[in-house]
């Protein structure tokens, strides 16, 4: 089945091509099921998952298991595509000059505010500011996508091997919609291909708010 034959994947691809996950998340925040203080972390986690699926970085625990506080990320030297400006900003914010970082320790204070402000500005520039019709349309598309993905997980799409292309495209959205874990969750990739840890958004949250 090609992407054109698969409307779900076509929708994911269309959204991803047009917007970064930071932008999509920024628009989707009001509709998220997350507590407000956790929503930003989940948006960032979805963006990191997108970068991981595109070969820009990978996640690992490395050496010892320490829960979300021990989760690390490493930059890869041979990504498949280029970073958008907000993605570049996020990578710079997280990694600085390092190749590998412990996510929860990247507490950069105003850097996160600057990133959020940048995303809001980008949305405004694209006509997706508050009270704009297109913003509501985008939110509705995302809610529709979330429903479709949830339906899909409940209707039998359980294994990555059933449709790897669709599953891969859905990974960042699954993180954004908080269906990456749980009883009915979006299929997880074989670890040797792509690994998005379930505690990613928690680690991102620690990076933003945990003073340690």
């Amino acid at each position: 089945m090609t992407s054109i034959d698969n409307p779900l994947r076509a929708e994911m691809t269309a959204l991803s091509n047009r917007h970064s996950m930071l932008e999509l998340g920024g628009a989707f925040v009001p509709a998220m099921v997350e507590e407000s203080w956790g929503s930003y972390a989940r948006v960032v986690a979805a963006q990191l998952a997108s970068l991981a699926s595109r070969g820009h970085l990978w996640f690992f625990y490395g050496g010892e298991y320490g829960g979300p506080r021990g989760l690390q990320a490493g930059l890869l030297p041979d990504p498949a595509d280029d970073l958008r400006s907000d993605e570049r900003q996020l990578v710079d914010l997280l990694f600085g000059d390092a190749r590998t970082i412990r996510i929860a320790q990247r507490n950069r204070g105003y850097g996160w505010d600057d990133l959020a402000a940048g995303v809001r500005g980008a949305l405004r520039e694209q006509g997706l500011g508050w009270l704009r019709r297109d913003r509501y349309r985008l939110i509705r598309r995302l809610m529709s996508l979330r429903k479709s993905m949830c339906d899909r997980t409940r209707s039998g799409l359980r294994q990555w091997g059933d449709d790897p292309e669709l599953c891969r495209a859905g990974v960042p959205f699954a993180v954004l919609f908080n269906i990456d874990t749980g009883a009915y969750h979006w299929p997880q990739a074989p670890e040797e291909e792509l690994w998005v840890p379930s505690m990613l958004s928690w680690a991102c949250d620690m990076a933003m708010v945990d003073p340690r």
Partner: protein
Amino acid sequence: MTDAPETNGQTTAASDPLDAAEWRAGDRILDQYEIIGSRRGGMGIVYRARHLGWGIDVAVKRPQPHRGDIDTRQFVHEARTWVGLGLHPNVCHCHYVRTIDGLPSIVAEYVDMGCLADWIRDGRLYQGDRRQVLARVLDIAIQTARGLEHAHANGVLHRDVKPANILIEADHTVKLCDFGIAGAYRSASGTNRAYRGTRHYASPEQAAGEPLGPASDLWSFAVSVLEMVVGGVTWLAGPAAGLALTERRSEGPLGAVPEALTDLLSRCLAWKPDRRPGDMSEVLPALLALFAAEAGRPYPRTPPAPARPRADELNNRALSLLDLGRPDEARDAFDEALAADPRHLEASFNRGLLRWRAGEATDDVLVADLRAAQANGAEPTRVRHFIDLVERERGPSSPWFSTSVTRELLQPEAALSPDSALLVIGESTGKFRSIDTEAGTAVRTWFGPDDPVRVIRVDSTGRHVFAASIRGAVNCWELATGLRQGGKGGTGAIDSRICVAADARLAIETFSMTRRRARVWRIDRSRPAHRLAVTGPTTAAAVTPDARWALFADESGGVAAWDLIERRRRFALRVHDHPIDDIAIDPHGRYAVTTAEGFEDYTARVLDLREGRLAAVLAGHRAPVSALAVSPDGTIALTGCGDGTVRIWDLAEGVCLRLLTGHTDTVVSADLADAARGIAVTADTAGATRIWELASGRCLRTVSGEAATISKVLVSATGRLVVRAGRGAVDAWKLTASGTAPFQPCRSRTAIELSDTDALVGGLIREALQSNEKGDVERALTILQTARSQPGHERTAEIMAAWHRVVPATGPGAFRTAWVSRLIPGSDGDRVNDICVTPDGAHVLTAGPGNAVRVHAFDSGELEAELTGHTDTVLAVRADPTGRFAITGGLDGTVRVWDLRSGEQVRLLTEPHGSVLTVCVTPDGLVAAAGSEATVRLWDLATGSLVHSLADHFGRVVALSTTPDGRDLLVADTASVSRWDLSTGRCTSVPERLTGIGLAAAAVTADGMLLTFEFPDRAKVRVRDLSTARFVGLLEHSRSAGHLSMAAIPGTAYALTAESDAVRVWHPAHGRLLGQIDSPPGGARAIAASPDGQHFLTAGDDGAIRIWTIDWGSADPQG
């Protein structure tokens, strides 16, 4: 073959030779020999017997039972001489020697056509015309001379050459026998020995009792020939035979004796030895010329070369030497047998049995060797039979009884009553059972607090059992009724520890974390009897059953000794510099033994309680002491160690009585029987429980169990019952006198058979190599397979050398098996951290043990050089592509380059990032890479300058390797494998990314497959194609505890993985397991393959390096 318990010094129904009766026709001996007839000789009785296992007739020669000790000694001398003589077509072959009914018995080739004396006497020698008779006489003379020439070449004088000792086969092949008074002339020369021999054939010097040489045998030989010529003995004594020759030149069966023969005999019968021919090699040409002249044709029998004994014969020789009281020579012969055929079943069994009984190897190693022989094609029924023999000697590994217990996190506790009649088990659920150890049935079940049991004690009367729980509750029950007799509730303190003095009915509660004071409870009361002025934290405590001695250890390493009955402190001592971890106390209150916590104090210390002093420091372990026990009689102690060794100590003298080796992991539990019984039992974290016989240091029995669990082991004071309380079950074994497994001889072949096979195989090898040179590899392999199917030639060095020359032409195919072809011994604790072979295959380089790099010759295993200079442990070693230099790195943070020819250090490259964990050299030999914590540095080997520093790796660098094209460097750190351009020093990709808690090993095959595995999932090795970064699959195998190391086999698409249970050979690109062999003793801490792909090396925790020969099949059956 028989399994009757008879041989090699161990058996026998009648061990006193005087009780041994002569055998009669029809007797069946040991179910192995059926007596057909007998004949009395000078040195003993020769029985003709049917060997029931081999289906052939043999001659069994034994001393006459009632001739006494001198005769037996002479007989043993004969046997030794004969066994040492080797194989020759004209020497009667001694199959082996074994002790039967207390008498040494030579089992030899049976020659059925009688001896030359018979032939002379009954006229068979003289049938036919004169020419035929003369040819027959000369034929016999020539063969006899050849046999004597062989004996003399081996330094053996026959001393009794005569027609009665010259046997003749149906095809007139002559065999010299009866080396009854033979001796090594090299050692005998110059000494005056009493005359022995046969009067009519003795040389003048022999008759005079003077020192003898080959000339004496030459005289006797000439006399024997003269007898053939003359037709009988016409002289009174050997020295007079020369005169007889002159008198009887024209008479006798031959009529006129040829002049040339007369001249030859005259020279041989010269009175003075120095006037005779020097040796048989001077006589033989004359005899051959005489034969050609008289018979009118050349002598038809080709000169026989001494046959080369194969593994079968060497095994028999070793057994014979063992029976003859030469154990060291026997070991050498076993080694020779296994060098000739590394998987020889009988030799593996016999040598393993010998080593096991000497305490040099454990029973499970012996069984593993036998299974390896089976994996190599040995007949399964024979292997099973041999394993059954081992089982019989060590006793069944299945328990006498087994009791299921609830499978909980904490193992059950157990204790034996003083008479061992009852076993009390306390489960972590609070359920108690008493088991009748004789019947193995539960006698009573009762319940205590719902709380895991920590301590169980039975008092010396055997009437009461006391149990303390993990929360500090102590209860007493009457064993006969199960009725509770008192107790106290738990305090609930998480740091509470209880010691029970069962006979005094006291319990002591101490606290390991808080400063609470120790309390003494009377078990029949619910309130503390009193508190002691022992303030916590108390790191360890122990008490004698009568409570006269209680010891409390504090955090400073000090011990306070108290008398709980009189409530007074007896003394206090500083024993260790670190907190004390464990105390074992002699029940009689004479000694106590302590061990310390942490990784700095590897000693145990003995306290003399009566004198209140430190009596001894028990030093010798190379890792922390992890198990401790004192025998019930208080005379010996046992310490078990993190390095798997166990030591037995004399408490009074403070000396190590015995070192027990065999455990492959940390010893965590141990117990001792009384010293007189000499039994110990130990358990390790790999799940193995071992029962030891202290007198010999031998591991009587190994019982495997669940890995990663800590089982408590017990042995009764009498040493007759061993108990293991493990997770899910409590098992008990009875130690009773077991049968002795007999050593196993092989059916050996005669010299002619061996020579014929050698000639056949030699021809086949030549033919195969010729075919190989012509490019017909398939035919070459077919021929070699035919050669390998010949008995004794399956794995000989010659065949394997030819095989290894031909197989690479097709590429290694199916993995058949591998065997240890060379062993470089080491000692426990001397661990080798890394190992490699130089590209020319000439040297083996090892990193460690310690601060040294060792260079061994690959072919011989001999230590050629020790490269010293590192100031701390060497962790990594590699050779450069020329094989001239070695590059090493270690904990001292340096990289050093060594010239292997001179052994000198030629370059010192300092590494500012701490320890150097791994090193690598680029294929062009220009650059060395050294990995340390998070950094890899590239050095120009020619100038010693730093080329690149590849930083920002995650964690420590685990492995370094170049890609097959040599352009990139692969760096494996704990989280990833990254690829770096060697010319630019830039990271170009991260082909493998790991998510677990750490990458542990990596390797790259010649076809570009990257292999990695990470903790904790060591059962799966991940394979990725480096060219496409595509994930290929997982190499999945059985999960086992222990370290895993990996190595690619150069020039092939294959790789090796080594774990504690097996070494496996893989085709990673296909995800296929090609084969596996059991891991060697000590496991394989490091593994490397030789550059030609025909060998691999393992370095184990036992310090030994094993060089394995791989037996590749000719073609990979699955492509």
